[in-house]
């Protein structure tokens, strides 16, 4: 068994002091919100409410209030959907995939990442509804016996979406919750009154007996084993929303892996964006260390390279095939109405990540924070460009068109961020932010696969 460093830093066996310390640190993060917290929460709720109001307006007036037109029938809403689903992905990746790869550094991030997943999926799930022309008929999308005697069209990628996203939400929630059961058991000790009661209920009366742990680790392993292909499948399905069509610039076999990589790329970036300020505010630096960030940055780099590869292949293939429609689209992307977006995206997703080859930068927290912000922007733009430019330059030149988001759309987008942060802030004070039992088991500090 390899050496472990404990909190107090000196080598040796784990001690009661260590266990207690871990618990105290994590629990402390759950108590006494500061002023900052309240301000942030207030702002988020405000944005969230605003977004919802605008949505209401859109429902009353009709989709026309959004900027989408013929031929660009999808715009910012679907962009946001893909964006948020993407964000959701790193969560499962970090906790499930890295769990299977026995990558210890996950335990620093997994709880936060999982929370992010659950919240992001909820946010994402909203957008397909927002973009429906008749959202009050959304239940037509569910296969249930109805008076219309009609089932749903299982050949439609949108139905695949319904299943993929709801499955993803369910499994992520289970995974999230199961991971927390022992920690609830720990948490209940540290609270009194109503909160104590809630935690004890949530802990289901967990004690940590031999059998419990035995089944528990098995369950966790299975869930991880399920979640991993799920991540891939879900974002593949999302990518197929586009690839299944025959729209030039959408209909491309590389989309599935390309989107999955992109999703993990953006999601991991989001994890960095969130954890860096958080570990400061909640004083968890000793649990989320620079080594962890270096590893995460590694993940970023790899995914970025895959994404870049896809960009290049796409463009080259368009030129290679000599297919006039494909060529039109990609030429338009690079030189057309959205060229600045395109080149900004190229900078964020292709050029900037190359800096991560430098170990110093990988270990530079500040840099990573800025970097991650750029990546988020870049990935949002990527989806926007793929959707809009492809639709804008389809087969019939007569009905080419452009698209400008309306204020409503922008407002709702802001609202979605509001929603995300509202839930996330609440989570950060209500649930244990780190997997206590896991840290107890493994200790903290550098360890390798």
């Amino acid at each position, binding site marked *: 068994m390899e050496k472990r460093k404990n909190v107090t830093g000196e080598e040796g066996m784990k001690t009661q002091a260590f266990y207690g310390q871990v618990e105290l640190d994590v629990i402390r993060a759950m108590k006494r919100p500061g002023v900052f917290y309240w301000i942030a929460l207030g702002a988020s709720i405000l944005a969230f409410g605003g977004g919802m109001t605008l949505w209401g307006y859109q429902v009353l007036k009709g989709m026309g209030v959004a900027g989408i037109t013929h031929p660009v029938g999808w715009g910012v809403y679907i962009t946001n959907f893909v964006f948020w689903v993407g964000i959701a992905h790193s969560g499962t990746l970090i906790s499930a995939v890295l769990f299977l790869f026995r990558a210890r550094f996950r335990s620093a991030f997994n709880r936060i990442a999982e929370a992010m997943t659950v919240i992001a999926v909820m946010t994402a799930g909203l957008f397909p509804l927002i973009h429906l022309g008749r959202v009050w008929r959304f239940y037509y999308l569910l296969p249930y016996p109805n008076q219309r005697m009609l089932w749903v069209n299982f050949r439609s990628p949108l139905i*695949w979406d319904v299943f993929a996203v709801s499955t993803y939400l369910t499994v992520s929630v289970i995974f999230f919750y199961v991971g927390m059961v022992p920690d609830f058991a720990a948490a209940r000790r540290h609270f009194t009154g109503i909160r104590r009661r809630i935690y*004890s209920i949530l802990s289901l009366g967990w*004690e940590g007996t031999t059998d419990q742990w035995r089944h528990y680790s098995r369950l966790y392993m299975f869930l991880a084993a399920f979640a991993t292909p799920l991540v891939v499948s879900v974002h593949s399905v999302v990518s197929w929303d586009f690839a299944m069509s025959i729209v030039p610039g959408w209909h491309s076999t590389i989309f599935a892996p390309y989107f999955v990589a992109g999703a993990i790329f953006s999601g991991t970036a989001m994890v960095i964006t969130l954890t860096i300020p958080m570990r400061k505010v909640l004083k968890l630096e000793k649990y989320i260390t620079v080594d962890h960030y270096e590893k995460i940055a590694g993940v970023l780099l790899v995914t970025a390279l895959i994404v870049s590869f896809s960009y290049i292949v796409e463009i080259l293939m368009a030129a290679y095939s000599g297919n006039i429609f494909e060529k039109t689209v990609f030429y338009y992307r690079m030189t057309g109405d959205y060229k600045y977006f395109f080149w900004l995206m190229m900078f964020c997703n292709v050029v900037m990540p190359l800096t991560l080859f430098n170990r110093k930068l990988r270990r530079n927290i500040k840099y990573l924070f800025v970097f991650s912000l750029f990546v988020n922007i870049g990935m949002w733009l990527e989806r926007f460009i793929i959707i809009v430019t492809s639709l804008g330059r389809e087969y019939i030149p007569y009905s080419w068109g452009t698209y400008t988001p309306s204020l409503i759309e922008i407002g709702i987008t802001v609202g979605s961020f509001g929603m995300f942060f509202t839930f996330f802030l609440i989570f950060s004070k209500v649930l244990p932010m780190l997997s206590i039992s896991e840290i107890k088991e493994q200790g903290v500090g550098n360890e390798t696969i």
Partner: protein
Amino acid sequence: MKQFEFDTQEEFIAKLKEIVDAGVKSEFITTLTPFHVHEVDHIFKTRPSELRYFTLLGAAAGFILSFMFMVFTVMDWPIITGGKPLISIPAFIIVAFECTILFGGIVSLLGFLHLNRLPDIRRIIDPRECGNKFLIIHDMGGGK
């Protein structure tokens, strides 16, 4: 009824070994630990958790049922779209796959709760707290 408490994992393991070597059957021993101590399983020589049967069942059911359901729907009211065959397997596989995972996940959770008899109302009300200590509760009913 005897109860031992330990501060470190190592002492705990040592004691447990000793008890078991003394020939006490594992079902008379309960241990409470703050995290999963794998050595315990080795000492008790427990078989791997039965959970996997639940998982397998759930997954299989998910795949088969969902696929059958889809086939049923297209047969129930055959509607041609885009010239694709009514039972277009490549398309159905996706939903079937998602359902496999959905059912697999849910059934495993249920299985887990069932195997551990959770949620356990009694324990919710007053749990046996071991703090961060390692406990061995030796039910003297068996052994010497």
